[in-house]
């Protein structure tokens, strides 16, 4: 989609330079960036994921279907629910299980917890320092202690939801194919109500604080891919849709998208079958499913100046806070209506419909797609997991190309900072995709 031999705008002197970032900070996992500019033309941009491969898909083979949620949780400590529910949805697809509404609502509640925890960690602690020119959130704590304290309290609420429903914040233990091991007690769930009421105001407070940041001027016409559900802002169930009208069943994902293995990265690169990069994550969800946000979330989005369709990737931090506001409202509604289900799970008959199943959910950083084929005993024959950061990787490189091209007048240190910020727009989860950034700017 993007040509490698773009020419420089007039007025900017042709230059030769190499930018190398060897260790990308404030992201999950190990990544690096190489940029080479010759005669003012970008000849090479590589966002490299150098996280060592862990081969989860191969190591799942031969194991029981029921092991998949606990094992795939270990792909990522920041978004374990994305993996657990992705695997669970796929297995339930294989076994033709449709859990009752109460179980689905509890799954949505725990996912709201993961979104709050992940979005607030990323936005306030990992990404906000970029806009303030600070190395880390501990320094923000010196400048604006109230903001960091509010963020930590909000993040803690996300973790508390994970603990109440899932037993543990990192790698919860209470989820399984068919539902939960144990029904969360009504009193424990209801106890979340007061803090969730506080959290709605706190989300708005953070959103308004972040809206005061200086946003770099850069826009892309993204191909946005997300889930969509007829009745709700899609998180844990729905079809797959794109901003260009694609609307497909979850199982048909490989007909329209594929992953390629490139030499410079231990993460596979997701592209459309036509070879185009595409965007998954908060901006994709917001652009595709805006109408399904709550009236208050839409009102606050408009108040801070977010357009109906977001094209500036740096505004992802604002979209994340709009989503945080939304899921605080959602979680509060679920908590208020919660009654303990008659049974924590529905039974699984491993012979019924065993074969293959596909599942997808909206991880905080984008869709996480799973497919498993099973034998008659319910053992996994083959596993395919497509994490969000692998899908975003070509789009990250595309953004970097535009950002570097438009900012060649910056000195190396400033350009490096801008590149890192651009990558962090994606909240890349590099352990998922196989961790942070090494930037090498080669100006020849």
């Amino acid at each position, binding site marked *: 989609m993007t040509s490698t031999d773009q020419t420089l705008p007039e007025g900017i002197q042709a230059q030769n330079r190499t930018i190398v970032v060897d260790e990308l900070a404030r992201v*999950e996992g190990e990544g690096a960036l190489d940029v080479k500019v010759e005669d003012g033309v970008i000849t090479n941009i590589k966002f490299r994921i150098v996280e*060592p491969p862990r081969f989860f898909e191969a190591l799942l083979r031969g194991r029981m279907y029921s092991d998949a949620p606990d094992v795939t949780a*270990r792909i990522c400590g920041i978004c374990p629910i994305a993996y657990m529910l992705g695997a669970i949805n796929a297995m339930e697809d294989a076994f033709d299980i449709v859990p009752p509404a109460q179980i689905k609502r509890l799954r949505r509640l725990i996912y709201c917890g993961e979104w709050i925890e992940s979005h607030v960690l990323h936005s306030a602690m990992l990404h906000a320092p970029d806009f303030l020119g600070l*190395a880390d959130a501990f320094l923000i704590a010196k400048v604006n202690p109230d903001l960091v304290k509010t963020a930590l309290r909000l993040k803690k609420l996300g973790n508390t939801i994970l603990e109440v429903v899932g037993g543990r914040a990192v790698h919860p233990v209470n989820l399984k194919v068919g539902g939960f091991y*144990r029904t969360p007690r009504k009193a424990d769930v209801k106890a979340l109500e007061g803090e969730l009421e506080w959290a709605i105001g706190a989300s708005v407070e953070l959103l308004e604080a972040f809206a005061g940041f200086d946003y770099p001027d850069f826009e892309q016409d993204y191909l946005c891919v997300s889930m969509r559900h007829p009745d709700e802002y899609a998180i844990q169930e729905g079809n797959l849709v794109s901003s260009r009208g694609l609307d497909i069943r979850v199982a048909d994902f490989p007909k329209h998208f594929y992953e390629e293995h490139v030499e410079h990265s231990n993460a596979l690169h997701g592209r459309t079958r036509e070879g185009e990069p595409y965007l998954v994550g908060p901006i994709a969800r917001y652009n595709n499913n805006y109408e399904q946000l709550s009236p208050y979330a839409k009102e606050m989005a408009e108040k801070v100046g977010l357009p109906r369709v977001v094209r500036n990737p740096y505004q992802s931090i604002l979209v994340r806070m709009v989503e945080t506001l939304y899921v605080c409202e959602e979680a509060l509604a679920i908590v208020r209506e919660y009654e303990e289900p008659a049974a924590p799970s529905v039974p699984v008959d491993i012979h019924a419909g065993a074969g293959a199943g596909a599942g997808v959910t909206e991880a905080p950083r984008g869709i996480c797609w799973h497919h498993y084929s099973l034998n008659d005993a319910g053992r996994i024959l083959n596993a395919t997991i497509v994490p969000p950061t692998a899908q975003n990787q070509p789009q990250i490189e595309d953004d970097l190309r535009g950002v570097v091209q438009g900012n060649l007048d910056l000195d190396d240190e400033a350009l490096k900072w801008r590149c890192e910020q651009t990558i962090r727009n994606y909240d890349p989860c590099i352990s998922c995709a196989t961790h942070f950034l090494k930037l090498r700017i080669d100006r020849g």
Partner: protein
Amino acid sequence: MADKPRLAVWKFSSCDGCQLSLLDCEDELLAVAGAVEIAYFLEATRTPPEGPYDISLVEGSITTPADSVRIAEIRRQSKTVISIGACATSGGFQALRNIGDYDEIVRNVYAHPEYIDALKTSTPISSRIHVDFELRGCPVNKHQLLEVVAASLAGRRPNVPNYSQCVECKRSGIVCVMVAHGTPCLGPVTQAGCGSLCTSCDRGCYGCFGPKEEANTRSLGKRISEDFGVGHRATADMFRTFNAGAEPFRREALRHDEH
């Protein structure tokens, strides 16, 4: 300021969950950040590494030639090295490659195996360097993590139990899921520390804190596979999760393979 102990957090092959546990200490995080100089913590800060360090927390297992060199340098620069989590203390789930056909495993996941530069094994940090303390868990328990950091700062031994999960269940008043419900459980051979999470959720312990000292895995393996009718293959699978590389669990799984 210059007198504060210098803390570094390092990552090897892992999911980041254990270092995230440090960021999950929301109530204590700013106090920790005030008590130590965070000299290196890639997940949280942009500060470049510059030794020496008083305490190095190491997450993840050794899986690449470059990492086997990097860990030696961290040891040289650090007064105290603490490995945190199942990957760092036993090799992690990825240690299952150690018993499989490595080349076949790589081919299963990557179209171009020739691009992959990894070791055929995933091994704990202690396999390469001397480690001063190993904190178990997948993930580690954040309260234990704070205790280990506090103990290291005070120069005392961390107060972390090495008894079995069963002791923790008894103390918490949790009815034994094996005795009462016949649910297979690794509690008798697993080190306590998680807070009885699985048994509180009416499921058997899946061993994420790894083997306790002197674990009688043979007796438990027999009971689960034969008396509970779980069978040998499923019993081997129970021992082959996040601490599959820990010797007692590795050996017990092999015993069931032989059937």
